[in-house]
């Protein structure tokens, strides 16, 4: 009996309270497509470890709001009384930062992660989860999956954890040779778009001499968030054409079936056999490529006819692929949210 594998999952933007359940439910719905596994639950087959960095951001957001509120309230009272010692919306934004609006729950996560030191405790927390799992199971039996903003958190954490930094003693880093992870799965990968302290194309987050045996990224054909600055490895001394061409080491999984208009949702990715198939294979489930093909056919029979074209035309019209940097992510997601709102749906990662 093979050793039970551990899958660490890292959420994207927004409120992540359902993320773990969504991943588990999606994979369980996927298992039903395979005769050998249809009575099994993913929790029996794999240890799923959920990592939530949003608590760090939320705590800080609350501290900012609590600190700003007395001043903002007092200022508002003075203005009401006809006095205005300070012009402008001073601190109104901070005092309301804790309220649950789209900007504050989604974009603020991106801004906090990309521009503030709050990213570091978020990465350290994930590094601890990884090291604990490695210590328990052995690195080859540990796999990490990130979604959306979580792909950046996963990438940057692994680069910080594994890269040998001159002047550091060994106690601070894992060695890619001796502690190489089973696999890394980046769903709706934005690590290149949000690149910060290291160049993604040169990072240690790569096979086979990097920190993982396999690097799989998942990019839905009509998920607009994956359109700006996608990560396309090229032969550069770190990535080679042999690695890029080897399915065991590297894959860009490109699902195209549209079963829900929210093509960015983790559920939409993981329910699709094209995505969960390779993931489950790396987790040692006995699935052949033919099993996955057949499941994909069954799955895509339920796809929304004509919606893929509609979405593709919409994103082309908005030229989301021409956008760059953090504004690109924000605008692409904004476009998806607006489009979903037109259909009476709520954007949820």
């Amino acid at each position: 009996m093979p050793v039970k594998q551990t899958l660490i999952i890292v959420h994207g933007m927004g409120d992540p309270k359902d993320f773990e359940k969504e991943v588990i439910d999606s994979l369980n719905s996927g298992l039903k497509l395979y005769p050998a596994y249809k009575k099994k639950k993913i929790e029996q087959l794999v240890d799923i470890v959920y990592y939530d960095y949003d608590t760090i951001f939320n705590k800080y957001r609350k501290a900012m709001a609590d600190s700003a509120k007395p001043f903002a309230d007092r200022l508002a009272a003075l203005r009401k009384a006809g006095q205005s010692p300070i012009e402008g919306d001073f601190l109104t934004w901070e005092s309301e930062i804790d309220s649950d609006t789209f900007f504050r729950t989604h974009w603020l996560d991106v801004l906090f992660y990309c521009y503030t030191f709050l990213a570091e405790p978020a990465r350290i927390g994930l590094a601890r989860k990884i090291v604990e799992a490695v210590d328990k199971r052995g690195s080859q039996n540990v796999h990490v999956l990130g979604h959306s903003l979580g792909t950046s958190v996963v990438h940057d954490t692994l680069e910080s954890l594994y890269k040998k930094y001159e002047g550091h003693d060994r106690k601070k880093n894992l060695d890619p040779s001796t502690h190489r992870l089973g696999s890394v799965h980046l769903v709706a990968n934005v690590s290149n778009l949000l690149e910060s302290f290291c160049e993604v194309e040169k990072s240690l987050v790569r096979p086979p001499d990097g920190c993982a045996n396999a690097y799989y990224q998942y990019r839905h054909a009509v998920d607009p968030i994956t359109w700006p600055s996608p990560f396309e490895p090229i032969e550069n001394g770190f990535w080679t054409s042999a690695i890029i061409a080897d399915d065991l080491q590297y894959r860009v999984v490109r699902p195209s079936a549209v079963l829900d208009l929210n093509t960015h949702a983790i559920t939409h990715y993981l329910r699709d056999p094209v995505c969960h198939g390779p993931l489950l294979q790396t987790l040692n489930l006995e699935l052949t490529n033919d099993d996955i093909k057949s499941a994909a056919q069954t799955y895509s029979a339920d796809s929304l006819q004509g919606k893929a074209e509609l979405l593709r035309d919409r994103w082309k019209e908005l030229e989301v692929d021409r956008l760059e940097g953090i504004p690109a992510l924000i605008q692409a997601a904004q476009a998806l949210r607006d489009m979903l709102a037109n259909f009476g749906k709520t954007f949820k990662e």
Partner: protein
Amino acid sequence: MQTLRAVVFSGILACGPLSLPAAAQALPPEDIQENCSRYRNDVKERDAAQRWKRVADLAKDVGDEYCGGSLSPDKLPVALFEFLSESSRELDSLGIDEKLFPFRQQLPKAKAIVDAERGIPNMAMLPPGQATGVSFEGPVRVNDVPACDRAVAAARETKQLAAQSCRQLLESLQASYEPLQLLVQRAYTKEVKQYLEGLQLRWDDFLTRSRAQTALELAVNSYLWRGDKTSGMFLEPPTWQLVLLHPSVVLEYVDKAIDGNRSEEGLMLEVIGANWWRNKHWYLPTGASYVLVYSDRAGLPDWANGVAVYFDSKYVLGATRRDGNTGYFISVDLLELYKDKKKTLDKYTRNLPKELPK
């Protein structure tokens, strides 16, 4: 055939003084005991190893020597390398040679890592359904699985192994190797784990004890902190905070103001200052800033210049000057602290008997 002990010993001699870093060498006996207890559990969990008993026995020899104290932790990677070399020869003897399964070609890479005192590579099975082979410094595939299956079937005839297929044979090899390699992994993970735990505590401490910041301060302080953040490192939390245009509410007392106007709530804007949040002595200030305070009083200017001093990164005391008049202020936080204490005191006194017994 040579015993593995002899193989290991000759390997150690041949490789020279190879070793793990100092921390891994100097394992106290209780650590070795704990490692061995975990090792035995790992072996139990990997019963697939028994399908290829010959290799499982080779691994057991190494494990027994480690747990028995005759193989020091620093020599474990060398012993493991010899185990791999011996296993590779065993594969050859089963007819699964380099052409069929080019595992031996990978061994020089492993040797280089052992020589560089970096431990020894880990090994994983290639995902079922995709290929038969192992991941070991890159994927090593069985080139002709049916031929390999036939070799395994032939070896079963001679009762050399219980594996039913080529995949099962390699699973046995991997299952024998893994518990020993985990001993090498854990020698390092323990230290990295401790380092990260400490670092996370220091960040928690910073996030709890430092001053709450505005968005502007957060952006500026993050920029200053980031400095030369690069790959391969996690940074410590900032040791100090720049205070910049930080607004808050204070209670200001101006003695020279007219009656009824002496104590007023005021708006304070800390123009610039700094806070060293780590100071643990409550009676020593953690920081100070130049401030402007606004309060509405008859006969006095609304705005005053001043200086604020913080204690425990939270409580502010300060003084202002407007038109030659000195004012004193405290932060609302400090007032809240006083209120809380007063509430506690009130509660306590309520429970006291109305009159003391005579």
